[in-house]
């Protein structure tokens, strides 16, 4: 409660400082709109439904691609950790592609899929995939061998060992990778949405783009605030529970 209060005070102060800057008229109000005008824009966008539908489109793209990326990456990471041949081939590829800024997938996606949902999906999957493969792989490699040995003496074999021992033991790494994958996916999706218009759905990135085209700074800043809020929410809803779980079980300070 106290922490929430402190956060609220902080953002309140930020808002006041912003208002003060606008009132000082250092920059043109076209470039730095007042908090009130941004609030007005957001209110309109909420009431006429554009914000809700854009958020839905974006979150859906993100969620779909992210989940698909995870479902693909987890088994692949386990496989590269298990088979040296895969580590030397697929693992190497993943390591290289993980370092590639995920925005770089956008032109390729456009050429392959055109201006379609497929392109968006592809970009998000590519953002997620590689870092989760790498994290799962190194997580599994860093599991103390004694866990698997102890499990073996208790009668655990094969798939049971992988699912009940190796995978949970690698969880701290995997959650780290999931978080990174999320960040990459989110960034590349925004880049894609700003970069290309897809008629099947206008996401938040498009709103941002049109804000710029129309020189509507209050729209640009308003959408950025929404993006910030989504990022925070995702962290609190998707990752905080995992991190609390890890913290409680492993006793690691994070």
């Amino acid at each position, binding site marked *: 409660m106290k922490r929430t209060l402190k956060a609220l005070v902080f953002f309140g102060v930020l808002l006041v400082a912003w208002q003060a800057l606008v009132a000082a008229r250092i920059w043109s109000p076209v470039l730095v709109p007042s908090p009130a005008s941004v609030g007005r824009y957001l209110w309109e966008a909420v009431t006429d439904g554009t914000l809700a539908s854009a958020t839905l489109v974006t979150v859906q793209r993100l969620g779909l691609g992210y989940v698909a990326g995870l479902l693909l990456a987890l088994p692949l990471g386990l496989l590269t950790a298990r088979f040296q041949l895969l580590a030397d081939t697929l693992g190497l590829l993943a390591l290289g592609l993980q370092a590639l800024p995920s925005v770089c997938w956008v032109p390729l996606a456009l050429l392959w899929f055109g201006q379609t949902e497929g392109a968006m999906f592809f970009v998000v999957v590519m953002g997620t995939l590689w870092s989760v493969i790498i994290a799962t792989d190194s997580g599994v490699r860093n599991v103390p061998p004694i866990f698997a*040995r102890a*499990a*073996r003496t*208790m009668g655990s074999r094969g798939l049971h060992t992988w699912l009940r021992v190796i995978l949970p*033991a690698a969880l701290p790494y995997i959650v780290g990778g999931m978080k990174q994958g999320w960040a990459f996916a989110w960034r590349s999706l925004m880049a894609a949405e700003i970069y290309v218009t897809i008629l099947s759905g206008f996401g938040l990135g498009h709103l941002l783009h049109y804000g710029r085209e129309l020189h509507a700074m209050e729209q640009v800043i308003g959408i950025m605030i929404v993006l910030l809020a989504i990022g925070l929410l995702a962290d609190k809803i998707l990752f905080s529970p995992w991190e609390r779980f890890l913290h409680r079980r492993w006793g690691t300070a994070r």
Partner: protein
Amino acid sequence: MTLASETQAAAPSKLSLRGVEKHFRVRRGSVQALDNISLEIGEGEFVCLLGPSGCGKSTLLNIVAGLERADAGQVLCDGAPVVEPGRDRMVMFQESALFPWLDVLDNVLFSLRLKPGLGRRERREVAEFYLQLVGLEKFHHAFVHELSGGMKQRVALARALASNPRVLLMDEPFAALDALTREQLYGDLQRIWRERRKTIVFVTHNVREAVCLGDRVVLLSPHPGRIQEEFQIRLPRPREINDVDVAHHATLITAALRGYGRSGPPAPQGDGI
């Protein structure tokens, strides 16, 4: 040869090690970890394998556990060759090897869930029984990192006991604990061994610990690991680490160690080797 050793040799062995050898491949060639180890261990016997670190104690225990394969010779358990780990031979390691993602109760349940023929309720009852046996009935839902070193080893013991193995293999399980905690565990282990009638193979580098716990102390020497000598410890139980008789026997064994120390293992110091 005494009458006792004669009758014991004739009795059927629970564990039978026959000419066990083990080599490890290292960067330059290979090292021989174990050389021609033969040992008979009777049902219900408490045997301590004693030796300096690096003499192959863990390797030997892992072979008995079925976690590693011998290069030559074989290990029989109830007359059947050991080829893989089995629930009849549970292992306790120096590090507790408890799973941090599970709480205490779930750690104990892990082995029970793998045992066929037990219902949910039965499993729980069994787990609770063994946690009580090691004195941790109040810590069912604690997480591993919240436990002290001694408590972790108690949970590991409960987990090993839970699937009711006939043989318990213990690899320096108390080496990382403080002296007071260890003393308590010596008492508990002897009590549990007697009550639950287990066969125990206990690895240690601590002479006193070996004397305090074992019916028999088997002395190993390093490079390669060989059986040097065996000592029968005929002292009343429960024994305590600071008993005069325990200290006396420990002195004898330490002296024996020194005796061949010039040609074999390094000279021992204190009660550790």
